[in-house]
């Protein structure tokens, strides 16, 4: 589904050369929910923007369904961390969700239907006429998720989407994402710096090294598909996995080479 091969990104500017991503290779299968986790500042966002076609990699390539990504591909949607800046304050919630659909060749009735359906999925059906800034942070991020859903992407890229919301809202949103993933069978690549979140959400966790970034470890999360905040988080297996990822990240920070 999604192939990342030898991805490399070097930023050059004002006499400084920063190698953000050195050499990344991984794949995400169709319908998989994969979490990318790594120490802060390890180029996770850079990586995701390269995958989403928002940045041109310095080397290597990204393939979506066998086709090289050279710009934002139509089958992909992006959810940003900064929901407040990603939603347009001059548009109502419904218009925000509908805007990307206007670029597609869809009838007005179909667009309406998609908008309604997407907002219902995130539990905000009655916010269609509100402005984003009239909603709480968690609700705004739900709108951003609804906008991505309405776009009917095959791959959903999420860049630390819950980093800026409070803990309770965050738990709700995590369950929402898992629910939507199961319901709709979308392929999700979810970037986070939160180890618990990565293990709780993902079917697979890819641990990245410190910058310049390479893949340090890939870990299958063998927790049951049915997860909930109460029981999953106290499951001994959950504790084992999160400890393991935690150790990997600590080692990555110290620059120890993975065994």
């Amino acid at each position, binding site marked *: 589904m999604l192939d990342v091969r030898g991805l490399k990104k070097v930023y050059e500017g004002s006499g400084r050369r920063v190698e953000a991503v050195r050499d990344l290779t991984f794949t995400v299968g169709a319908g998989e929910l994969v979490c990318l986790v790594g120490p802060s500042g390890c180029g996770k966002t850079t990586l995701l*923007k390269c995958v*989403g*076609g*928002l940045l041109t990699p310095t080397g290597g390539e990204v393939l979506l369904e066998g086709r090289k990504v050279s710009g*934002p591909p*139509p089958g*992909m*949607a*992006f959810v*940003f961390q*900064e929901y407040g*800046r*990603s939603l*347009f*304050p*001059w*548009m109502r919630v419904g218009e925000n969700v509908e*805007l*990307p659909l*206007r*670029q597609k060749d869809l009838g007005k009735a179909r667009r309406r239907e998609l908008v309604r359906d997407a907002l219902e999925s995130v539990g905000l059906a009655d916010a269609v006429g509100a*402005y984003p*800034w*009239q*909603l*709480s942070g968690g609700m705004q991020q739900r709108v951003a998720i609804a*906008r991505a859903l309405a*776009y009917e992407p095959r791959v959903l890229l999420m860049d630390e989407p819950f980093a800026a919301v409070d803990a309770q809202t965050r738990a709700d949103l995590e369950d929402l994402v898992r629910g939507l993933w199961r319901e709709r069978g979308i392929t999700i690549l979810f970037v986070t710096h939160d180890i618990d979140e990565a293990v709780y959400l993902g079917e697979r966790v890819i641990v990245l090294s410190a910058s310049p970034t390479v893949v340090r470890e890939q870990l299958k999360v063998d927790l049951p598909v049915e997860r909930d905040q109460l029981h999953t988080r106290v499951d001994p297996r959950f504790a084992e996995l999160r400890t393991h990822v935690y150790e990997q990240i600590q080692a990555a920070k110290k620059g120890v080479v993975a065994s």
Partner: protein
Amino acid sequence: MRGVNAALGAAGLAAFLALGEAVPRLGLVEEAYFPPTSRIAEALADETADSAFWTALGDTLTGWALGLAIASCAGIVVGVLISVVPYLRAVTASTIEFLRPIPSVALIPLAVLLYGTELRSVLLLVVYASFWQVLIQVLYGVQDVDPVADETARSYGLGAWARIRHVLWPTALPYVMTGVRLAAAVALILAITSELVIGAPGLGRRIGVAQASQAVPELYALIVVTGLLGLLINVGARTVERRALAWHQSVRGEVAV
């Protein structure tokens, strides 16, 4: 609080008008050059009864509105183009900085040479003065586009035109509004000035005629009219601004969530 402020404002204006009445009557200033308020009001009433006054007002407003419209459209189009086309901003920056400070009135002889006392003379001066007001604001406004908003638009496959329409334009709109409001005030100044100096038809020329014929109260009455015009234009521009920018932080205020 609003009612109190309005009452205080009205009281202040009344006091000012009363002062204007009392000072000449008490002989503190020469009445021939500073007629009392009541004389000015009388002259104003006479003016409004004269159809030539209304024609002059219409001429001034035509020059103002046409000039402002041309300057605003040109300022917006040029501003967006300069910002969107790579390198164009750097190429034009120094030229803009050179042309912008030239006072429009310095172009009066040129306008007369080109167009004589026609409306086009007035338009040349009005457009030149107001164009920069709009252009500079548009250039600032476009720079204010949030990179996250722009990346969002790009990630959803919005093309260049759709991004200008849905991201760049709404972001720049508050600046455009400010630019147009400033330009509206400048345009009025230039419209009156050019009529006065060049003799193009309008309130400015009427003020010149009043001066030449020593009709001092009429002179004041016409000045009051130009002041009222300026006031109305500013109020109108602010109303439009508030309506168009209801979503903007400066208008919507704090929202409880």
